[in-house]
């Protein structure tokens, strides 16, 4: 039953991604200002949304781990698995954002990269979570979960400061397209394809996230079993 549900979810996700691709490339009209290159928005923005959402999940997992590590060890393990899965899959999607961004910027602004508020924030966010993953790899033993949770909280605290500091420094990235000032927003003919892609990428991201979460839970289980066996062998 569970396998069937997973298979069904995966099939729907893949179908949606194909549909989203069709919508983005063939259905959405060419942008009046930017031409064909604007179609990258159907990949750039959904990936950014997924990345930021997963980093938020990772932060919640870190806080949850620290909160429950003494009172409810089992919950803490679950929280830690979410923290790791969120950070790891988030980094992957953030990499997509940082790859599609310069491709777009090269055509739209004439430059690959600029030290603007949102670009820099995303880059620093990526750096912070890569360092988080490095810590998880380098540190050994059970304390790694606590250390990683603390670093996760520090990293999340840093993000608003990075954003503000870069806004004062320089800004080139366009103002928010959605929910921004007057004159913002997308043409209706583009909104449909955009939402399809958003849905497809979100479902794909969640699929990978849950897979990664399950792998980590299995990993935790085996580690516990191994520890128990080692204890039993000593007696």
């Amino acid at each position, binding site marked *: 039953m569970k396998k069937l549900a997973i298979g069904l979810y995966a099939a729907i996700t893949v179908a949606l991604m194909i549909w989203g691709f069709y919508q983005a490339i063939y259905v959405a009209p060419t942008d009046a200002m930017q031409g064909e290159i604007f179609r990258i928005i159907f990949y750039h923005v959904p990936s950014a949304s997924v990345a930021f959402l997963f980093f938020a999940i990772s932060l919640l997992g870190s806080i949850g781990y*620290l909160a429950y590590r003494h009172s409810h060890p089992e919950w803490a393990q679950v929280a830690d698995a979410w923290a790791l899965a969120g950070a790891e899959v988030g980094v992957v999607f953030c990499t997509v954002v940082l790859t599609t961004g310069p491709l777009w910027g090269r055509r739209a602004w004439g430059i690959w990269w600029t030290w603007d508020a949102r670009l820099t924030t995303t880059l*620093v966010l990526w*750096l*912070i979570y*890569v*360092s*988080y993953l*490095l*810590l998880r790899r*380098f*540190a*050994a033993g*059970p*304390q*790694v979960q*606590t*250390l990683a949770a*603390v*670093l996760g*909280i*520090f*990293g999340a*605290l*840093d993000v608003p*400061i*990075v954003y*503000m*500091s*870069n806004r*004062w*420094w320089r800004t080139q990235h366009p103002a928010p397209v959605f929910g921004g000032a007057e004159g913002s927003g997308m043409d209706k003919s583009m909104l449909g394809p955009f939402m399809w892609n958003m849905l497809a990428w979100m479902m794909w991201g969640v699929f990978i996230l849950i897979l990664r979460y399950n792998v980590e839970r299995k990993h935790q289980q085996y580690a516990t079993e191994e520890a128990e066996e080692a204890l039993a062998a000593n007696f």
Partner: protein
Amino acid sequence: MTSALWTHLVKDLRIEWRSKDAINSMLFFALLVVVLFSISFDPRGDFARDIAGGVLCVATMFASVSALNQAWAREIRHQVLDAQRMAPTPGAELFLAKVLANFLFVTIVQIALAPVFLVIYNLRIQGNPWQLALVLPLGTWALVANGTFFAALAIRSRNRELLLPLILFPIFLPALLAMVVATKSILTGESDPSLWIKLLVGYDIIFTTVSLLLFDVIFHAE
């Protein structure tokens, strides 16, 4: 302040007074970075003034990493760290003592480096020099407070000396930016650094508070 903090602080200062390991190595390292930058970029005139602030901050940053690693690595010998963990005093006091000691060391290095810096880069400060006396300590505090915290965190991992810069630099980035831009605007006198000083104050308050709150968590992590 309480006696535990004072004891730790006096101990660290005394060790440094006798060995002078941290200050000497930091000073030489920072000097090397300054020379390396000068050779790589051949700074003259306005260009020198533009990059000098950044070079000073980056040199301090690189140099302090080696000292910060030593700050905790020294405690591992003879199981001092384990003893400190068992001591019935709050870890925050130990942490604060280490931050104060290292802050003092890095500040001494900066003061010693300043004249060299003015000579090599042919600097004449155009803005208000007294603002530098605010910017540099604030930036150094941000570096040392976070650095001491992450050094205590990295000490628990396998390759600790490698890990500290990897986790410290990304978090330190906004403070570095504020420090560099503020120093540059003071050196060139072209813009007002007060906004960046405020950012540094905010950064220091936020991260020092969080470090003090979370230090016991990482110190006793098992």
